[in-house]
């Protein structure tokens, strides 16, 4: 059974229909990239899965259960971690408090996950007690990703983790995501093709609110024409 199955998804914000037909299937353990130009509907797609954007028609199934109409906090509790593109960290809380806040359970396994996050991102360990507002953009992104790992969610949605980061930090982040992808299922929205190439194995291209192409990343890497046509590379 697919971990996430989306069929004919149409979603809207106010009077505007943003997604016109998304079809996607993610298997457990996969790392999949969602690629596309600016304004193609990639972020809206993740927000629709999370229940933040309303669905007009189509289905979203997670582990065989429909997500359509579910409030976002219930979607999160069902086991979907989400890192929004603006990092989504709480500036006035410390790194420790941000991580603790993410906990759904107070058990040993969750404590181990926090230790794992700190090992994965040593920068966070050094600044553990500092308020998030004092962190750099890269550290905030690390905290955002790290926080989504605390509950060990079966599926993690990550929205443009490279946005606004220095090349050296993007490199660090790519390697960390690759490491995370070894044990989790990742759905990565990314403009940075190089990062998507490092982290994911498969891709979907969204254009004008529709999935227009999908395949293996290694094939896309060699297909310059497709890259140019849909990604403007």
């Amino acid at each position, binding site marked *: 059974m697919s971990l996430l199955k989306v069929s004919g998804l149409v979603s809207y914000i106010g009077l505007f229909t943003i997604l016109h037909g998304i079809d996607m299937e993610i298997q457990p353990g996969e790392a999949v990239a969602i690629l596309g130009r600016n304004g193609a509907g990639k972020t809206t797609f993740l927000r629709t899965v999370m229940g933040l954007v309303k669905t007009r028609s189509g289905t979203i199934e997670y582990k065989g259960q429909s997500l359509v109409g579910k*409030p976002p*906090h219930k979607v*999160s509790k069902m086991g979907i971690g*989400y890192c929004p593109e603006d990092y*989504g960290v*709480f500036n*006035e809380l410390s790194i420790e408090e941000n991580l603790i*806040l993410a906990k759904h359970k107070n058990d040993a396994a969750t404590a181990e996950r926090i230790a794992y996050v700190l090992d994965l991102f040593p920068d966070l360990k*050094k600044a553990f007690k500092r308020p998030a507002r*004092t962190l750099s953009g890269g550290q905030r992104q690390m905290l955002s990703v790290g926080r989504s790992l605390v509950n060990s969610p079966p599926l993690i949605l990550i929205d443009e983790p490279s946005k606004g980061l220095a090349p050296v930090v993007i490199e660090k982040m790519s390697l960390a995501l690759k490491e995370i992808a070894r044990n989790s299922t990742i759905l990565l929205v990314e403009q940075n093709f190089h990062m998507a190439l490092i982290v994911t194995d498969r891709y979907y291209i969204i254009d004008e609110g529709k999935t227009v192409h999908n395949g293996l990343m290694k094939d896309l890497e060699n297909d310059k024409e497709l890259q140019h046509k849909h990604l403007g590379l």
Partner: protein
Amino acid sequence: MILQRLDTIRKIEVVIIVALAIVLLIVPHVAGTATVTMVSRIMIFAVFAMSYDILRGYVGVIHLGYALFIGGGAYFVGILFTQFGVGIPMLLLAVVGTSVYSAIWALIVGKISGKSGMIATAMITMAFAEIMRSLMTSWFTVTRGADGLPFRVPPPFNDRTMMFYASFIFMVIMAFLLYKFTKSPTGRVWQAVRENEQRAIFLGYNTNRARTIALLVASVVGGLSGVMFGLLNRFVNTDLLDMQMTINAMLYSLIGGTGTLFGAILGSALVVYFQNLLLDLRGVHFIFERWLLFIGALYIVVVMFMPRGIMGFYYDWKDKRAQKKRLLQEAKLPPQLNDEA
């Protein structure tokens, strides 16, 4: 021993708090009745303002009918004492009644704030307080309407010194409990809701429930401050349900520092003292009759130069100091270690 482990700033903070506590404890023995009553009022208002800060500063709810609680608590005491007799059992009944009354209002407001926006909630809560004020005015046979209801209070609260210590203990206990609440997992969710509700939802939190819990805690504490205020004043009238009381709570927490909890204590001390000082100066010059002008000026000065209030300004200064210290430490490290830091 404990002091040795603290850094300089912490030591100064501990010394100031202990010194203030000692000064407060000796106030009834060295000051006149007026000062003792004023300080008691400051301590009760501090609790009222702290409870308001939980709403405004921690979950971002604008409750314009917050006077419902201080007024409600005071009316519970007044009505029970005048109708059923003065005594500790009636006081306990007033405490229970106020808690239930406050909790009911909190649940109603919680439901409304979950469905409507913050502006609608602010307006509706203002209307609730006005409805209650109108009810208390009309229920003349029991409340004596706008004339107000004087009543006797049972010992030991009929003694100004004992009332002072009761207010002190009340403030310390409530400050401790509210502080513990803000540091609890629920408190962290409140802060998350205040900062960005949607982000808190992403983490799986039912933010409406978190907001309702904050409303319950704040309203009950606000109501209990009303009980204490009734005991101190031995009088209650509809002014306590007036919008001005809500504005006072807002002002105390804004000047002291919204979202800092203890800032509300500082804010209420500063404003109430300043207000009393200006009233005393009425004989010197007629301008002091218009004391609200000066309070307004104080508010403008604080907002202009300390947008996060006095405590917020202090916390920011501490943050900057710590950051500077950290940067200096990093600069002193050899280059290879500095990379890791």
